[in-house]
């Protein structure tokens, strides 16, 4: 139980972070049909924001959390309004490339605004080790797992019961008909970007609490790709589970095959999954008409 228990525990913890980011991908894909390549950068920028707030008001977790959520919302809305909305009606290809460009801009701005060194984000909580059986986990790791399931449950209820959630599903299913039924597509897109940015931010802050802040954090976004592919790009809940699965696979590969394989295990997984099911495990099969 020793090694495998530890590997599983830390796999689930990191997987929960991938899962959160993957849900961010799925939320945007579901409502706008885009893959947002800047998701990892959103994660990183909110984490840095939290660090700035935390170092100016020490010891006040609530302020940090509220501040970074507000920052994430503003960031998401600004990106949607300034960059994405003018591209409505253009080919998907262009809009996706736009997010790639956005990713590069955000990533470089972070290094320019803050610096290129790793920092510890210490909020004064979540540092102590909790023992479950003979597996030790940090408080923040457990908090991450709990957060993932809370966010998943929240999204399930949101899509199922809230008016906006139903509108989002309608836009995802058929945006033109949704428009005719009186749903404002731009409004839905704005909400999706804000929500996705907030989830990314939560993941970023939790990651920074467990590990450290560093300019290489954007790679979390790349690592969450396999998760969202596994779960299906248009399945928000599936992406959350996909993340946990990818985290476990990655850690097991790192522990039993070799540490180098840890970084690429997810990518190999993507290629294998896409060979078998080109639309993801839980994704909807696309029917193409000529």
């Amino acid at each position, binding site marked *: 139980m020793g090694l495998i228990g530890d590997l599983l525990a830390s796999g689930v913890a990191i997987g929960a972070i991938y899962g959160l980011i993957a849900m961010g991908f799925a939320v945007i894909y579901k409502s706008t049909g885009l893959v947002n390549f800047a998701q990892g950068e959103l994660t990183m920028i909110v984490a840095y924001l939290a660090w700035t707030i935390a170092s100016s008001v020490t010891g006040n977790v609530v302020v940090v959390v509220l501040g970074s959520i507000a920052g994430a919302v503003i960031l998401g809305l600004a990106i949607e309004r300034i960059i994405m909305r003018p591209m409505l009606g253009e080919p998907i290809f262009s809009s996706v490339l736009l997010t*790639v460009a956005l990713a590069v801009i955000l990533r470089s*701005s972070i290094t320019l605004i803050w610096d290129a060194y790793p920092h510890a984000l210490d909020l004064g909580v979540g540092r102590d080790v909790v023992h479950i059986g003979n597996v030790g986990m940090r408080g923040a790791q457990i908090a991450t797992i709990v957060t993932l399931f809370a966010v998943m449950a929240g999204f399930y209820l949101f899509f199922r019961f809230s008016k906006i959630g139903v509108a989002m599903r309608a836009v995802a299913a058929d945006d033109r008909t949704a428009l005719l039924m009186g749903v404002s597509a731009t409004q839905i897109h704005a909400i999706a970007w804000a929500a996705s940015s907030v989830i990314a931010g939560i993941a970023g802050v939790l990651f920074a609490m467990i590990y450290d802040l560093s300019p290489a954090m954007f790679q979390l976004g790349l690592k969450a790709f396999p998760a969202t592919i596994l779960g299906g790009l248009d399945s928000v809940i599936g992406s959350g589970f996909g993340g946990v699965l990818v985290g476990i696979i990655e850690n097991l590969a790192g522990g039993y095959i070799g540490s*180098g394989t840890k970084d690429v295990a997810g990518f190999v997984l993507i*290629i294998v999954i*896409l060979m078998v099911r*080109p639309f993801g495990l839980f994704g909807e099969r696309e029917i193409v008409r000529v």
Partner: protein
Amino acid sequence: MRSGDFKESYASLVVLTDSRWVWFWSAVLVATLVGAPFAVNAYLLSLVTLVLITVTGALGLNLLTGMTGLISLGHAGFLVLGAFAYAVVVVKYKFPSLAGFAAAAIVPALFSIAVGLPSLRLRGLYLAITTLAFSYIINNIILDASSITGGARGIAVQRPEFLGLDFSSDQAFALLCLFVAAVALFACLNIRRSRIGRAFMAIRDNDIAARTMGINLQWFKLYAFMTCAVMTGLAGALMGIYLSFVSVEGFPFLLSIEALAILIVGGLGSALGAVLGTLFVILLPEVVRILFGLIGGSLEAGLSTGVHEVKSIIYGVIIILFLRFEPRGLVGVWRDAKRLWVHWPLRY
């Protein structure tokens, strides 16, 4: 006044150009480029060499993304493969340079089959993600196989020498790059007007319709991947020689973005666009640097500390601006200018 431009046979429709003046100016351009290495100073020469190498790489991606419509975010993977194939064959196993270049073309082509096969079933975004995954896997393989590739330490590369020609001087190396770029350009232009090129464009425009017209999708998609990989691999080998050092860090993910930026700025699917885009993207940081130098010292100092970041931001911003305001790219601007020039003062 010309009332129109009528073609009377299929051959004259697909001919490279029917204008004698285009041939004339192309010949002037080639003569200038051949003479240029001996006329300009060392800094400009290295810039010209970089442009020529990048053109080769961009033309490769243009075949895949521009003509066939398969989005690739793993272009840096092919570049790094070409560079390492050359370096390993020439430096490690002491084969002649020509064998190195052959390896730089063949190894990426073989790997492109490996990435192309799973991609046959994928379209659009999923393909972009697999190619991204591919480039990370390649980097990891190279780092892991350190007994052959030197791993993270990389390999130092000398200037090549083959067929009795010595390319160790900067001028001679620039001419070699010019030769490769010119061949790549002609290959692209000619592929475009052949059956293969038309099949590529048919796949881009609508793959299912293309299949009903008798185009073998599997074969032509793989073919696009392989031609792209060959050109890009050669560009990678030249890049390694140009940097005189081959390492995984020398070919960052940013290169894949830069290649896409070149295509978008130039105009997707056009060989001329790849050339114009390269000129724009490579020369822009230089222009910005000179402008900042004129404004004042403190900005220039800030620029030199964060040069990589500023460059990335510039790439990002120009991609966004072109996608937003001129999706046809520089080629579109060029065509508008040409039309204006021919028809002025009439509108059309």
